[in-house]
């Protein structure tokens, strides 16, 4: 196993091209994030090696990497979701570190542990951190212990005790959410309107949670029906040191999937922003968090409440808006930290000097209920101009595979304030052309021209009814 080089040694190596002693970074992911990590690895003078499935072995990301190692068959369950196969690939290529990207194995403690046994760095938090924030119950406990505001909630002792359930429900008020304590992401959540529904849905939810998460424990939580999704970008040194890189608003969502993100979150008062940033800082310090992470909150539009949602212990899809707003490279910082180097991140003010907006372009047909599609991309043309960034792996001739998620590209635009950024992203979207398969671009044209979005501060419940009205109008 190669030892981790010191900064000086690394610098020396960069000058000498002869012997390739660059640390090897294995990228255990695909698509645009694989491209992004490969670029960061090159930027810091490391050698990127891609762990790919069969179908991705000749992808644009594969061609950018120094080397490709095929870890398994095309379905993610036979390749990208297999910790043993990824860890073995890391051993075979002599990796110093493995970057898991987002999704797949990025928050799986098992991969981190397998790598630790081999003396290979996992680019992410420690396994115990992944466990502590990996399920809703323990994340909530960690948050409460760090004085982070959480939604009023209570654990259920007996799912069949109707009287006790009704009392718990009345204590919180309706509507409320049933959540699986061991659930994660958007899974294991049910909305309840009244006590009759509660008595029926709780035993069902317990049975489902038992099946899905191996544990049927549930809790009830207050539901915020008109809240914004605001999240804080953090970077921890692993020893209790923390840097905050502002906030992002990701409230334009469809079925809990983010469509558009921006930095900074618009219209936050200084007081609210301070609550969000201070709570995130306290949480990261309490966890001795290592590397890049995101603390997600709901910011209520009907009250002054701000409540903790969850910690995403990885780089996120929407990290570019933060990078562009503050002029930092979060992925390079992750890699440097994992290699034992200074992440080289500056201290930044709470609000960046620019506004950045990102659109996610998905291979889905917005006029057919967002049905995913795959196939040959025949032509691609990206907008050009100041402040425009495109994170993607698609190109003309690329066959978009059906095995994985539908993200094709992220279009990111920076401008001096929000009005200018909204105008700039609308113009950039209008000058984007992808032919061969249907994309969500038409949906973006609609949202970017909508007065509510232009005004800003829409809640997460905004998109669904507005889009439905639009679609009905379009077809009738």
């Amino acid at each position, binding site marked *: 196993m190669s030892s981790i080089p010191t900064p000086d040694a690394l610098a020396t190596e960069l000058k000498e091209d002869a012997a390739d002693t660059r640390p090897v970074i294995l990228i255990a992911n695909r698509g645009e994030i694989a491209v992004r990590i490969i670029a960061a690895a090159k930027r810091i003078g490391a050698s990127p090696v891609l762990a790919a499935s069969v179908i991705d072995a*000749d992808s644009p990301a594969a061609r950018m990497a120094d080397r490709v190692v095929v870890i398994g068959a095309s379905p993610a369950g036979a390749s990208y979701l297999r910790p043993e196969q990824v860890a073995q690939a890391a051993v075979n290529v002599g990796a110093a570190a493995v970057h898991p990207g987002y999704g797949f194995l990025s928050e799986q403690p098992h991969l981190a542990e397998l790598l630790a046994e081999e003396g290979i760095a996992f680019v992410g938090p420690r396994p115990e951190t992944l466990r502590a924030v990996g399920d809703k119950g323990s994340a909530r406990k960690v948050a409460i212990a760090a004085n982070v505001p959480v939604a009023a909630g209570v654990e259920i002792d007996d799912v069949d005790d109707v009287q006790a359930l009704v009392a718990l429900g009345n204590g919180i008020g309706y509507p409320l959410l049933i959540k699986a304590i061991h659930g994660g992401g958007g899974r294991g959540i049910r909305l309840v309107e009244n006590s009759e529904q509660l008595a029926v849905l709780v035993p069902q939810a317990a049975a489902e949670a038992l099946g899905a998460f191996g544990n049927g424990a549930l809790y009830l939580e207050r539901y915020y029906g008109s809240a914004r999704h605001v999240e804080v970008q953090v970077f921890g040194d692993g020893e209790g040191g923390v840097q905050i890189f502002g906030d992002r608003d990701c409230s334009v969502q469809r079925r809990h999937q983010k469509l558009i993100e921006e930095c900074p979150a618009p219209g936050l008062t200084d007081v609210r922003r301070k609550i969000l940033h201070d709570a995130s800082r306290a949480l990261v310090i309490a966890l001795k968090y290592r590397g890049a992470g995101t603390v997600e909150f709901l910011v209520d539009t009907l009250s002054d409440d701000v409540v903790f949602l969850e910690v995403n212990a990885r780089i996120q899809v929407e990290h570019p808006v933060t990078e562009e707003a503050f002029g930092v490279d979060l992925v390079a910082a992750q890699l440097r930290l994992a290699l034992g180097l200074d992440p080289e991140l500056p201290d930044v003010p709470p609000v960046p000097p620019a506004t950045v907006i990102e659109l996610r372009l998905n291979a889905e047909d917005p006029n057919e209920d967002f049905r995913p599609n795959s196939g040959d991309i025949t032509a691609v043309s990206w907008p050009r101009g100041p402040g425009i960034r495109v994170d993607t792996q698609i190109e003309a001739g690329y066959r978009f595979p059906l095995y994985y998620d539908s993200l094709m590209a992220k279009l990111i635009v920076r401008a001096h304030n929000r009005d200018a950024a909204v105008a700039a992203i609308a113009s950039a979207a209008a000058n984007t052309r992808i032919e061969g398969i249907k994309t969500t671009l038409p949906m973006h044209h609609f949202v970017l021209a909508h007065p509510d979005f232009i005004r800003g501060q829409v809640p997460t419940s905004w998109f669904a009814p507005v889009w439905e009205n639009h679609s009905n109008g379009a077809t009738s």
Partner: protein
Amino acid sequence: MSADTNPSWQDLLDLVTQLNDSNYESASVQFGNVSVRLSNVAGFQDGGAAVSAPVAALAALAAPVAAAPVGIAVTPLAAAPVAAPAAVVPVGDRIDAPMIGVFYRRPSPGAPAFIEPGDHVEADTTIGIIEIMKLMNPITAGKAGVITVFLAEDAAAVEFGQGLAMITVDAS
């Protein structure tokens, strides 16, 4: 079988047989003080047509799942050391690595190889082992015939789909 006794080989085979038809990715079973780890890797043989349940769930958006190209030979982009037997022109069918790992031609260091070139094998004859994260996976010939050449060296790192050996299949 008693929980206090160690399993016999037959116990383990029974376990594998039992689990063979069920959907799981990995299983860990404790027999007394022996712990057994099993991993069920989907789509080994056909590169993805036979997907396991968890895979099917992921791919459900786009059913039916198209079969991936079968037995693609993928060569690392950078100049990886090419296996030695360049002088031999490989003939017959290629036996591919069904998983990433380290390929061993012998059961333990110094022991005779399972198979030497020129040996006749049956479909279920073990021609080597692939180790993945300390898990030893016997690799069988898959077809009856004569192994003509090994494409992967003993103790070589191999990728999914990489050629291990060539076999001249028996005329039927």
